[in-house]
């Protein structure tokens, strides 16, 4: 098959979480100056929307790039069960020592999913923190 047969498939999920932007090596004043209201010590929160994109050639037998039900189960077990209705700073291993910006959350989600997805499929994660703020990783 040629490159022309590659298809992108997407699965959209969502999770609701609290967080604060905080650099532990900085003073409270510096955190407040850099991160503003996003550094509120009592946290704030978002409805995150997650779009997982896979690119590959449809399987000759199934016609699927990947069975999206299986992808949905992987996202739920690998990402949503860890992050949904949680405090990203306090309740997750990934952000104990990493600032939970949208950028870092996207990188973490990519790294959680990558080993669970066939290596021949390209993976890209798009994460909406609000309707107006979103990030993508990796940059393809």
């Amino acid at each position, binding site marked *: 098959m040629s490159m022309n047969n590659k298809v992108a498939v997407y699965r959209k999920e969502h999770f*609701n979480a609290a967080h604060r932007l905080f650099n532990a090596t900085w003073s409270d004043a510096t955190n407040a100056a850099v991160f503003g*209201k996003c550094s509120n010590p*009592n*946290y704030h*929160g978002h*409805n995150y929307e997650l779009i997982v994109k896979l690119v590959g050639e449809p399987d000759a037998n199934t016609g699927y790039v990947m069975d999206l039900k299986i992808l949905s189960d992987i996202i739920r077990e690998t990402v949503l069960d860890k992050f949904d209705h949680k*405090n990203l700073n*306090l309740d997750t291993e990934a952000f104990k020592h990493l600032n939970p910006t949208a950028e870092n959350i996207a990188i973490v989600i990519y790294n959680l999913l990558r080993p669970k997805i066939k290596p021949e499929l390209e993976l890209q994660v798009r994460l909406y923190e*609000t309707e107006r703020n979103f990030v993508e990783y990796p940059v393809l």
Partner: protein
Amino acid sequence: MVYLTRLEHFNAAHKLYNPGWSKEQNDMVFGVCANENWHGHNYDLYVTIKGEPNPDTGFLMDVKKLKILIKEQVINKVDHKNLNLDVDFMQGKMCSTENLAMGIWQQLQPHLPPQVSLHCIKLYETARIYVEYFGD
């Protein structure tokens, strides 16, 4: 009679947790929403007022003034805040979407000009869950 709606939004943390109950009972009733360390939402707030347009301006109310009122009385108090800990008008209440909508009504209603009535507070907690409060 004409109705005018302004849409605002805010991002906040909260939890559903009744301090008069045990942790087990809170978990049973509120499930994941009772997570002790909070979770959060992007809230969308629709404020609808009603009345007769002023014959001189054609306005029910100057929407710039309505925007400032909502910002001062509501958004500045709740945006990027913890609803349980940081918000004066939610102290002592359960931070459900229902109670938050009613609290927002109480924040706005006394500050509207006399010829304008508050009609509805519509509050989206997620894209799929919202409540409406009409003041009765």
